[in-house]
């Protein structure tokens, strides 16, 4: 048997991390629900039961807010927070959410590393172009070819990194869409 008081204090306890404005809006919604329900001659326990678990409702509210925050500002931190909040909604999410995110993150990081490596090798070639040729024991090398080849490689590496930047951006948009889909699917479960 849950009373309104118990329900609300459990809800408040789980909404502590939110801003005052968001928290109050959520609390008011459920307060009003209780008040109207009581006017319709329902008991507090009955209303509380059909509302669902306050802890789960709080988690859901938090996840929704963090996702819309991540949508506005797609920083790594915001997306990570949104993912974490969504994972908290159910165990099922741990695998479904974390897997693809880690995979995408790994792809972006490795592409950046590749781009960086290409640019660095180009830089090395440019530097090498100013060293005497005997240094390499490869007589076929030519200073000019090395210099321009090196510059070419640096440009290629930078282009690679820029491309990866856009891929990362695309991934973050995808990730947010995916989180939203998950929230919608998972949070409707009736206990």
């Amino acid at each position, binding site marked *: 048997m849950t009373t309104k008081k118990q329900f609300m204090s459990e809800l408040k306890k789980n909404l502590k991390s939110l801003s005052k404005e968001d928290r109050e*809006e*959520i609390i*008011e*919604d*459920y307060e*009003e*629900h209780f*008040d*109207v*329900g009581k*006017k319709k001659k329902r008991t507090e326990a009955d209303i509380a039961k*059909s*509302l*669902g678990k*306050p802890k789960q*409702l709080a988690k*859901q*509210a938090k996840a*929704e807010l963090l996702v*819309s925050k991540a949508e506005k500002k797609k920083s790594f931190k915001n997306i990570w927070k949104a993912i974490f909040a969504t994972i908290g909604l159910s165990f099922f999410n741990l695998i479904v959410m974390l897997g693809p995110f880690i995979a995408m993150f790994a792809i972006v990081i490795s592409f950046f590393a590749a781009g960086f490596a290409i640019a660095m090798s180009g830089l090395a070639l440019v530097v090498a172009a100013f060293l005497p040729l005997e240094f390499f024991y490869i007589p076929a090398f030519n200073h000019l070819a090395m210099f321009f080849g090196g510059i070419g490689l640096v440009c290629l590496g930078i282009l690679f990194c820029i491309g990866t930047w856009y891929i990362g951006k695309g991934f973050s948009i995808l990730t947010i869409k995916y989180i939203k889909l998950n929230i*919608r*699917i*998972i*949070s*409707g*479960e*009736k*206990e």
Partner: protein
Amino acid sequence: MDTQFKKGVLEIGVLSLLQQKDYYGYELVQIISKTIEISEGTLYPLLRRLKKEGFLKTYLKESKEGPSRKYYQLTNKGKEKAKKMKTEWKEFVKKIEKILK
């Protein structure tokens, strides 16, 4: 009914009801939970999201029985969305029915 199925229709249900008139939260929850079996509390996050995304706006109105209630109303953007979703839904159902026959 399947959970994924339910979630998808909640949004269209809310928007469609609000096309007819403005409702306050409790009313909306009751109407919807009568047809679609969900825990009543889950509708509020949906309403807040639709409001945040600019499809709904809210206003307070006095009630005869006590404190004022928060009413939900479609914005122009919400009206368009409701129309679009309903058309898409009807087309979708038509196609599925063809398969199910």
